[in-house]
């Protein structure tokens, strides 16, 4: 799991690369928590998770994405998952959370 962070006014974008599962869930969750606590000023706060670089995501990974959304809501940060494709998108769709996670 490689996480690339880029900051803009009022927003953080985290690009996740690799496989999101039991082995990487904690690490991804920590990156998301840190991002939520350190969003730059300059606009309505937004966290974007770019998952285009993920090649795998199972329910442990879905739980991380949902945890990110819950953490964002608690901090009144807008949250959106972008770039889901292949098995990552299918896992999100099959668990019924694709729309929830990909619309702001």
């Amino acid at each position, binding site marked *: 799991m490689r996480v690339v962070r880029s900051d803009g006014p009022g927003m953080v974008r985290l690009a996740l690369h690799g*496989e999101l*599962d*039991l*082995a990487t869930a904690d690490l991804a969750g920590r990156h998301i928590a840190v991002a939520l606590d350190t969003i730059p000023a300059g606009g309505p706060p937004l966290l974007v998770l770019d998952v285009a670089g993920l090649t*795998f995501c*199972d*329910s*442990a990974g*879905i*739980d991380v994405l*949902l*945890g990110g959304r*819950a953490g964002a809501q608690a901090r009144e940060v807008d949250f959106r998952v972008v770039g889901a494709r*292949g*098995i990552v998108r*299918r*896992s999100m769709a*099959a*668990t*019924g959370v694709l729309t929830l996670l990909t619309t702001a």
Partner: protein
Amino acid sequence: MSALTAHLDVPLHHGAPGAARRAVVAVLGGWGFRDPDWLDAAAVVVSELVTNAVRHGGGCIALQVEAHDRRVVVSVADGSSVVPRRRDPDDVGGRGIALIEALAENWTVHNHEGGKQVRVMLLPCPGLEESSGSARGGAA
């Protein structure tokens, strides 16, 4: 040779799901199951089964893959006799069995050496000839 089997002991650790699905994908590819989307679904099923065995199962984990013609069954045995049950999902889980049900044909639970074995029958793999003995014996 219309029935093929693979068996694999899996030590309990958080890298187990990844190792197990990589092994299973290599095995199934070698048996002639090559459809990438179908292999992705098989990988998710294996990952869910092993993750649940690591989190809830305890004891040794034994993974088995069986192919009877076009049908593939993946099973994971663990040392707990507790039977998995679909639960209401929340922010911290409860989607593993739902994902298995969405991506596979059916799942069953069997007694296994004091613990249990969860068996999942995968959907038929697209693109295999009906007589898959020859399909699987073919060139890579």
